[in-house]
């Protein structure tokens, strides 16, 4: 019997076949109570205390995903059939320093962020540079559901049902020429809308890059949605990169610029601590972070008593991407 996926039921549900160790999170608190409590804490100024996360872990069902539904989503064979993490976990545990450095900060501080109107500036080694409106991009491409594993460099991981556009088909619209060896992405820089940017934790704006082959790979996604809905602010609205075989920091959020370059771009984390974060950042259990091991990862949502999982080479996407790196010393080129 096949595993039911999110679209089959029309309502986000989780796969029904349990595996040993797959403790499905159960979050109770009725949505109205949950929202009221968060609002109360926010007003009481207690929310940045980090330790206070108001949701119980004893419930039967996670609150339903919120936000405008995205139309015409196709399923993809590239999706994993592992159970997806809950909406709550995916939208309340985020590394998005533009909205604060705590995991719960983005969900609290990005509430008022307005991603409309939005456009992307395309430039560099291509024949169709210009300013492209977000609505245009959405209208011209078929949306696909991609349920991908996401592995953070901090050694935790999730399974996330993204909705997006294959990056290759998006980039091809801009007609990169033969000099385009790399693609560089930039995030919005606006401290008035992104309060975390008022501190120079990173050298804003956030920058990331891929080789042109990596950018054109079928797995690479320009995500615009989550659980069939528009991407929440804290997950990188309105559009962000997803490169599932690399550490999560490569998957840059709130993209405002795409440049085709001859020279390899330097990503923000690489620039901040080059001894710890490299350009490739391929998930690799054999190459430790200088300060911690990468051999295992903590699965989010599995609960307090779940054990760590062994990390997979290329985050389990080795079959599809290993060929991009034949002959490359992955220890040197981390």
């Amino acid at each position, binding site marked *: 019997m096949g595993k039911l996926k999110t679209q089959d039921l029309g309502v986000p549900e989780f796969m029904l076949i349990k595996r040993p160790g797959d403790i499905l999170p159960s979050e*109770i*608190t009725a949505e109205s*109570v949950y929202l009221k*409590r968060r609002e109360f804490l926010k007003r009481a100024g207690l929310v940045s205390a980090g*330790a*206070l*996360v*108001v*949701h*119980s*872990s*004893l419930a039967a069902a996670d609150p339903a995903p919120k936000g405008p539904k995205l139309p015409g989503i196709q399923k993809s064979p590239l999706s994993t059939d592992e159970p997806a*993490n809950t909406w*709550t*976990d995916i939208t*309340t*545990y985020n590394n998005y*320093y533009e909205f604060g*450095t705590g*995991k*719960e900060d983005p969900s609290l501080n990005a509430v008022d962020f307005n991603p409309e109107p939005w456009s992307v500036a395309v430039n560099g080694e291509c024949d169709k540079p210009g300013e492209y409106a977000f609505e245009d991009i959405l209208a011209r491409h078929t949306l696909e559901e991609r349920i991908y594993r996401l592995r953070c460099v*901090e050694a*935790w991981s999730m399974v996330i049902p993204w909705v997006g556009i294959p990056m290759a088909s998006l980039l091809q619209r801009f007609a990169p020429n033969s000099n385009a060896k790399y693609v560089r992405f930039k995030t919005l820089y606006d401290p008035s809308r992104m309060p975390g940017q008022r501190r120079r*934790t*990173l050298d804003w704006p956030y920058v990331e890059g891929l080789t042109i082959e990596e950018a054109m790979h079928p797995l690479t996604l320009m995500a615009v949605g989550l659980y069939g809905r528009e991407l929440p602010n804290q997950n990188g609205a309105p559009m962000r990169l997803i490169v599932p075989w690399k550490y999560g920091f490569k998957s840059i959020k709130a993209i405002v610029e795409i440049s085709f370059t001859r020279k390899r771009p330097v990503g923000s984390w690489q620039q*901040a*601590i080059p001894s710890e974060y490299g350009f490739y950042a391929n998930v690799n259990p054999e190459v*430790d972070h200088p*300060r*911690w*091991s990468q*051999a*295992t990862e*903590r699965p*989010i*949502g599995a*609960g*307090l*008593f*779940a*054990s*760590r999982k062994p990390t997979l080479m290329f985050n389990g996407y080795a079959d599809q991407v290993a060929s991009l790196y034949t002959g490359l010393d992955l220890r040197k080129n981390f």
Partner: protein
Amino acid sequence: MKPGSKPFYRLTKPILFLACLLPLAYLAAAAFGVAGFGLGANPVEKLLHELGRWGLKFLLLTLSVTPLRRWTGWNWLVGYRRMLGLFAFFYVVLHFTVYAVLDQGLDIHAIGEDILKRPYITLGMAGLLMLVPLAITSTKGMMRRLGKRWQTLHRLVYVIAIAGVWHFYWQVKLDTLAPTLYALVLALLLGTRVYYAQMARIRRQSQKRKISK
């Protein structure tokens, strides 16, 4: 009731004890989803970090007793120092237990590798191990038995506090604001001791000069 008298401590120490247990009570409630509290999407990490922070907070609280006592003249404050110190040990042990049991699943090989290969964990482990003799010799009986050596041994708490804050600093990914604040408080608390020691030395020297004149 006179501060520092037996009835005074008999009243206040249990209250302090309960107060020191509050962080644990909150975390336990959060772990079981009681009263709408929760540990978030990564409960092991949240528990580990919160227990570590409380261990550090209690260490700093313990270290603040003497400066506070000197500044206010309230000598009876020292009566609480042992309890605060033992609670620091308690929270640090819980922090390590969560790491070893919940996070690493008692994988001795992985834990051993961490202690040997990750400097921040080496430092944390050293801090924990140094706390053990202090906890063992915290009793009045031990104080009597060790005499002057007790004072010398318990000066290790300065090293332990430095190791703890450093462990925190080396653990954070990038945002060093929190460990820096702890370091500043620690620097202040250690600094006052240096100051008082200096003042005492100057006083002793001037007295010697008076005698020799």
